């Protein structure tokens, strides 16, 4: 399983290996990762919701449904300009939590 390294606190690591789950069956790894993703996902939602009003969510939604992703990108870029920071923060936090 070729895995890219990730950097946590300046240290390059293989996250799956670091977690010690690389020898688990792929299905089981998948289930764990799914759960992890759910957690990160929910946390990201919580963070993103801080930046969007209900009206804005409606607007983004309407754009997504109508296929106007450009417009949705624009709103997201405007309203969540620090999305990458949010993601990296949540990721780092989560990774540390998992590795502790």
């Amino acid at each position, binding site marked *: 399983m070729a*895995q*890219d*390294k990730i950097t946590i606190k300046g240290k390059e690591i293989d996250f799956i290996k670091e977690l*010690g789950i690389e020898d688990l069956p792929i299905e089981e790894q998948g289930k764990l990762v799914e759960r992890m*993703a759910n957690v990160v996902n929910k946390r990201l939602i919580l963070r993103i919701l801080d930046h969007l009003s209900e009206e804005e969510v409606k607007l983004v939604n309407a754009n997504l449904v109508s296929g106007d*992703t450009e417009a949705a*990108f624009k709103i997201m870029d405007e309203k969540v300009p620090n*999305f990458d920071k949010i993601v990296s923060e949540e*990721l780092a936090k989560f990774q540390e939590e998992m590795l502790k």
Partner: protein
Amino acid sequence: MDRIFKPKEDPSTTEISKERTDEIVADQQVRRPPIRPEEPKENPSGKVPYDERHPDGRALPGEESQPASPEKSKAEKVKENLTNAEKSTDAKVAELSKEKGYFASKLESLAKNKKLPLLLAAGLVGLTIALPVGGVVAGCYGMGLAQALIGHGILYGAGAEFYGAASVAAGTLGATWAMPKIIKELLGKKEATPEAVKTATPEPVKPVVPEAVKPVVPEAVKPITPEVAPVSEPVKPATPEAAKPVAPEVVPASQPINPEGKAEDIDKKIEALEARLAKFEKAIETIEAGLNNLKDIAGNDRAELEKLKEGRGGSKKTGEKAEPATEKSSTEATEEEVKKGKSEKVDDKDLHDLISQKIKTYRGDNPKNTIPNDNKHLLRHFVSEIYGLKDEEYNDKPLNSLEDIKINKLVREFDDGNVTTEEFYEELSKIIRK
């Protein structure tokens, strides 16, 4: 169990008095559950039963040893941490839900019923193969957006189909908008090279194909009236301009039944139904126009046929036979007339006779016989030619048993005069139309 976890004997405590030993044993007996009569234990593995092992729990000689796996314990730890993370996150979600009165319950219900990880599933591919966290998070973000929207109660009322659509779009959004940033973040020292993006980006988007979305759509979002299909099988008009039947497009019921009865959703549903009704009404108009046109043409044809028959009738009356009067040849002669075009007119009675003769040709004289399958197609060809239809509009595949039965019944009714030629044709069309 006490044998497994029996602590190593400390030399300093090895000397225990008899009284103390008895006390410990008595204590253990009190704590232990009552000993049940020994039951035969299943041992499909063929391994030495646990109780017959070495008192330390070690495997006996010859038995496969099963040392505790450090990976497994690590995995257990990961699971524990994960469970804690889930609990804390869910608590925050619940808190937000309580504060704002939305978000959590619906989000959680989606998560619970497994509708949630559509994109995630794809993210996992990336995760397990190449980019453990990047794929997930990219998928996550897209998913998260859809979730957030649903959480706001905007999408949920409209149903899972809506949700699926949003997921698709959101997945794309997550993959294209967030992915490079996430990869860059994840890879740390590595730059998010186009190759890296290319490797990771397609993965989260993969499951967002209709097949992936389909299972998410609950029963409620299925088209409300799929039975409208027969409407799209009108009598084929004979005029070129109306030759193509207007198949009313069944507007996909994009607005599923709204479990919460939101006015907004009802409005959308009303709009969708109105649009569909308008299409049906238009289709009905077109069909009616085509039918009227067909009746006009049939009337003209009838009149012209009468004239032609009058012209040929004299010679027949004299008993002259210009050609062998076999059923088939006479039928073919009339067929030729019909095929020649609209100038050759056939009235209803003649058409009926013509079809009757054809039926006899294909079936035989005995009305109790049924028409062989191949001949049913010939009959269909014949009838469709009369009405100027194209073969490609018909299903040439072998008839199934239901179609077979229907055609036989139809032919019998036609023979008995219970159905008109028009009805015969309509019914036949319905049965064998593509």
